[in-house]
């Protein structure tokens, strides 16, 4: 289940969707009680089906072109997951972590051990210990067979208010899924509420066993609170127990003060994390800009510039975040950022184009002309070259200033 769910994110975690789909296929059938004693993984058909659907959904995401292609980072996050994996987890459960190019903060696990984490969440985390806390939580969901648990419990409860005529017709259509959401979310939230806390506790134990600083598990919740302060509460119905962050934080604090009392430190892995996520910060800033999330883009870029202060592209993107947001003060900031980018890399056309556009709009045609000419010389194939040529012609026809 997702630990995060933000504005514009689908309200559906993969697991939640799977449970819905599975329930539709088997409504009315007798289901086993939600107990797993002496029940090996994949020994029953419902779990086998759940895993098959999980595999299908994962393939759809993978083939959908949203995976972030960074071999080094993928190896890094999977290595963290491998370190976290306790020996007690069944061999049938094989974890694989995937990173998606998505500026919103989210992570979720499929019952077969597939874990997805967004660049938006990776960009917000401060160190490897926090990444480990997220991964441990998601791994705990898979190891706890929470999808199967939710599926069986809700099936046993008898899918509420679902019209029989629609059974088996679920085809992924949003409006029908929304109706499903209304019909079943109460049951799933009830399961989810309890399982989120269980996954938090199990994840915390995994974090301690792997020698990470356990207090970092709490820090990840602060990021979510900060997100709420910027974005506001989610606009869509949220599956699971996400409104219960305060409750979960309290439970974690209690565990840290009792069971893990005295463990006040551990591995943070900040340097390793910073070295891995630099390209993620730039990518995510670009994604946030495209979505009009200027404040988020600036957070990505300011962090990146702390690590790489001399990067012209980051200064340019920071300028874009100000310029696109607009307003007198922001335009002034944008100008400074673009100028910094040009100083750092005189052969980089993008900030020169941005400066040309700013001066052009403000009627400083001489300056604009200089930058536009520079852009066409530096990047004759620039995607905006026809626009630039037009603006340049206008500058020349109107003369000074």
């Amino acid at each position, binding site marked *: 289940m997702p630990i995060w769910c933000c504005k514009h994110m689908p309200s559906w975690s993969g697991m939640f969707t799977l449970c819905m789909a599975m329930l539709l296929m088997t409504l009315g059938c007798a289901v086993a009680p939600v107990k797993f004693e002496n029940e090996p993984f994949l020994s029953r058909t419902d779990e086998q089906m759940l895993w098959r659907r999980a595999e299908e959904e994962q393939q759809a995401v993978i083939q959908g072109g949203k995976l972030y292609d960074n071999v080094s980072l993928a190896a890094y996050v999977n290595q963290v997951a491998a370190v976290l994996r306790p020996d007690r987890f069944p061999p049938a459960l094989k974890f694989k972590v995937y990173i998606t190019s998505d500026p919103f903060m989210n992570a979720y696990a499929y019952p077969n051990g597939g874990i997805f984490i967004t660049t938006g969440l990776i960009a917000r985390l401060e160190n490897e210990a926090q990444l480990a806390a997220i991964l441990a939580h998601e791994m705990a969901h898979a190891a706890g067979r929470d999808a199967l648990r939710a599926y069986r419990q809700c099936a046993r409860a008898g899918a509420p208010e679902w019209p029989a005529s629609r059974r088996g017709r679920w085809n992924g*259509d949003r409006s029908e899924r929304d109706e499903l959401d209304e019909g079943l979310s109460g049951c799933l939230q009830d399961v989810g509420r309890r399982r989120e806390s269980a996954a938090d506790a199990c994840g915390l134990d995994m974090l301690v066993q792997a020698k990470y600083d356990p207090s970092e598990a709490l820090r990840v919740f602060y990021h979510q609170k900060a997100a709420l302060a910027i974005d506001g509460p989610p606009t869509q119905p949220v599956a699971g127990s996400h409104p219960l962050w305060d409750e979960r934080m309290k439970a974690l604090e209690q565990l840290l003060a009792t069971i893990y009392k005295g463990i006040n430190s551990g591995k943070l892995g900040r340097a390793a994390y910073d070295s891995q996520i630099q390209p993620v910060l730039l990518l995510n800033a670009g994604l946030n800009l*495209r979505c*009009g999330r200027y404040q988020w883009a600036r957070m990505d870029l300011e962090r990146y510039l702390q690590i790489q202060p001399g990067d012209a592209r980051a200064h340019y993107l920071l300028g874009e975040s100000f310029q696109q947001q607009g307003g007198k003060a922001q335009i002034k900031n944008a100008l400074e950022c673009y100028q910094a980018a040009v100083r750092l890399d005189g052969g980089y056309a993008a900030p020169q184009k941005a400066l040309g*556009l700013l001066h*052009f709009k403000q009627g400083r045609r001489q300056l604009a002309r200089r930058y536009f000419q520079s852009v066409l010389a530096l990047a004759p194939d620039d995607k*905006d070259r*026809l*626009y630039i040529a*037009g603006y340049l012609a206008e500058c020349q026809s109107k003369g000074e200033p």
Partner: protein
Amino acid sequence: MIKRTAAHAIVLMIMLFFSMAGAVAAAEFNFSIDIPEGWWRVNTDKYLVITKDGAFRHYILVQERPLLLPFMNTGKTLKPDSLPSEVAQVIVDELVADPNLTELQLIENIPATVAGRPGFQLTFLYTDPAGIVFKTVYYGCIQGDRFYNLRYSASEQSYFEQEAWRVFSGVRNSFQIN
């Protein structure tokens, strides 16, 4: 169940109230176009939509909207001093962020004169949720505090059928901002 894009859904709903029109201007908007002979005008106070064979095959949509009205998917707004290239980029970002458009492929983004004003022309392909590939040519410009746009959208196989493209060129040439 076949799911249409948001624009198509709007068109479908309002087609219940369609009316037929000849070569008339749309008086309730701050713009006018000549509606070609044989095309149906679909009544709505938000858009001007005309079609000949049904909006699921092709349609021409003309719209005006306040600059400060945030776009649905990105929340971005336009500014009175936004240049055509900047407006075009906002529209591209909006298209990219639209969950109903998959496999979006921007074919062209070039300057264009729209109703005598500096504007832009985008040409793009996308697949709607039913799996049908649509091709759209989209013109836009800013006048005062409003953004005007007109587009011709058609399923790819019918894009150049029945002289619809020629008709759209005529509509575009007749487009005037009052």
